[in-house]
């Protein structure tokens, strides 16, 4: 009996040892596919800052949590957040210059969560009781103005002889590549490949998927993004700049059509198309990565209703 108990115990221990075996060598953790999502900067009001109801002659504290949920660096430089929507003679002490967005690291292959920080304002509420006003209900609007970047890589098939009659099997067939999103509010959603003899044309579809407003890249446009400025003109909004497009180790930006002289592409109803092409010297079809980089300014807002009541 004692021997049977010992045997049973040994069996149980052995089972545990087998089940809890360390992973065999060669199974190292794989980098995650991180270039996905349509968010750049994420803005959230910190809970109860401000509270939904305040009273006059009180102090008001407003705090925003900012997080870089995209794959490009953000913050520092001229990127700023502004607070607007309230009467400055009732809520005082909050300036119109905005506050700088601190540098926020992007997501990457080995960093699943981007940089996070907080930005806060402090104001003072004037008396409403003196004017026999029961309440004041502004809608606070936090507006973020920043520059961002989208980088997409598509494996495309380049076929220098698409119409050649041959029995030889080709490595690949030139066709469109759907890309989805790349961890940025401006997404390169599709690359359509049109092969021709010794030349391949790409039709690249770009979409504003972030829910905000995209505008031309540059500091002067960034300043105009402020709610306290004259605003961006119609020919400054809905533009992205093609920073570069490379394939076969070389840039083909010069071949691209649809750009203005500053290299900006206009988006119509949130979508635009870019036409680029590459000349081929090869003899047979092959796969190659096509890398596209866009730069742009982006504006997004988040509202917060507030109720300020008069107290005796």
């Amino acid at each position, binding site marked *: 009996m004692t021997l049977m108990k010992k045997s049973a115990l040994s069996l149980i221990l052995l089972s545990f040892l087998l089940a809890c075996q360390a992973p065999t060598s060669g199974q190292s953790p794989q980098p995650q596919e991180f270039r996905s999502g349509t968010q750049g900067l994420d803005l959230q009001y910190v809970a109860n800052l401000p509270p939904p109801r305040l009273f006059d002659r009180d102090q008001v504290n407003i705090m925003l949590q900012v997080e870089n949920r995209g794959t490009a660096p953000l913050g520092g430089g001229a990127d700023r957040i502004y607070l607007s929507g309230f009467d400055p*003679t009732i809520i005082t002490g909050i300036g119109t210059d905005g506050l700088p967005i601190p540098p926020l690291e992007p997501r990457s292959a080995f960093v699943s969560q981007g940089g996070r920080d907080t930005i806060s304002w402090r104001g003072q509420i004037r008396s409403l009781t003196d004017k026999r006003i029961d309440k004041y209900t502004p809608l606070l609007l936090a507006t973020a103005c920043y520059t961002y970047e989208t980088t997409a890589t598509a494996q495309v098939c380049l076929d220098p002889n698409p119409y050649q009659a041959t029995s030889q099997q080709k490595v690949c067939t030139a066709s469109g590549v759907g890309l989805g999103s790349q961890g940025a509010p401006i997404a390169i959603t599709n690359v359509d490949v049109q092969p021709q003899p010794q030349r391949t044309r790409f039709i690249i579809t770009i979409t504003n998927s972030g829910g905000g407003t995209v505008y031309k890249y540059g500091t002067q446009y960034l300043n105009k993004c402020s709610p306290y400025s004259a605003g961006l003109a119609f020919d400054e909004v809905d533009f992205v700049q093609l920073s570069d497009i490379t394939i076969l180790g070389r840039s083909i930006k010069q071949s691209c059509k649809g750009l203005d002289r500053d290299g900006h592409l206009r988006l119509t109803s949130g979508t635009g198309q870019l036409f680029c092409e590459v000349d081929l010297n090869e003899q047979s079809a092959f796969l190659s990565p096509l890398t596209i980089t866009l730069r742009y300014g982006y504006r997004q807002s988040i509202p917060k209703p507030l109720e300020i009541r008069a107290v005796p």
Partner: protein
Amino acid sequence: MRTFGCWLLIIGLLIGCTAPTTVPAPPDIAKGTDALTIDLRATNPELIMCQQTDLVATLRNLGTTNIERGLYTFIIEDQVLKPVTGTNRKKLFDLEGRSQYNPQGGIEQTTLKVKNTALPPQIETYQTPIILQACYQYETLASAPICIDPDVLGKNPAKPCTVAPVSVGGQGAPVAVTRIEPTMAPAGNDIRPTFTIYLQNLGSGRVVSAPDVESACTTTTTTLNPTVEIAAFLQNRPLRCTQREVRLEQGKEARIACESEQTYGPAQGTFSSILEVEITYGYINTASQSLTINRLPGQERCPP
């Protein structure tokens, strides 16, 4: 002991787990369209000839403005009723308005003792009206949320407010601002906010001009001007209005236009603010009751 302990635990859990209560908001004071309300009664509405009765009036200020040096007058048919010696038909009164300290408003009760002195001959039953008329100066302080938007071209789609007409409810006074129509009039590169303000007498009484309020209750004049004085403010600055006095006909809406002397540019951004309107006027409230005087068989006249 154990049972007692269990009960204590249960009670403690119940108290601790009660639903969280939110702090109630202070009540809104600036609402309603009443100012002074009068409740007039006779202690004995059916009077025997030559008898006397008390007329009891309860005055209540349901508005938000204090009544100071208001005047009330009992109006009775002198041929059949006379005040008993020592009681006054006219009297000045003060009544506090509603506020957050006093949400009910001031209340006052006054009495007039009257006696029937005679009845027309061969009249067995006679109905005579008794009226209390109160005249006082009043003020409406209206506040309305409005949107100041220098971005008339709509360059920025995300705005904290939009310029739109505002309907304003009662403001704790009978003369009310019923609605406001804002316009962002271009002024160079800026805008100048302009407001069309509609007002109306929504109370049950009559509007008179503030200087005429005393004579309304003391003289028999029939020519009383139903005018109000109006002033508007935006961000503590007075607006420039087309007229300072407005004639307010009974049952009709009056209109006045006011514009801001200050212009607003893109540097101020789009924001919501409060337009304040001050209306000063006199007001007359009247309450009436009917008193029945009955002649007993054989009664001829009342003793002196």
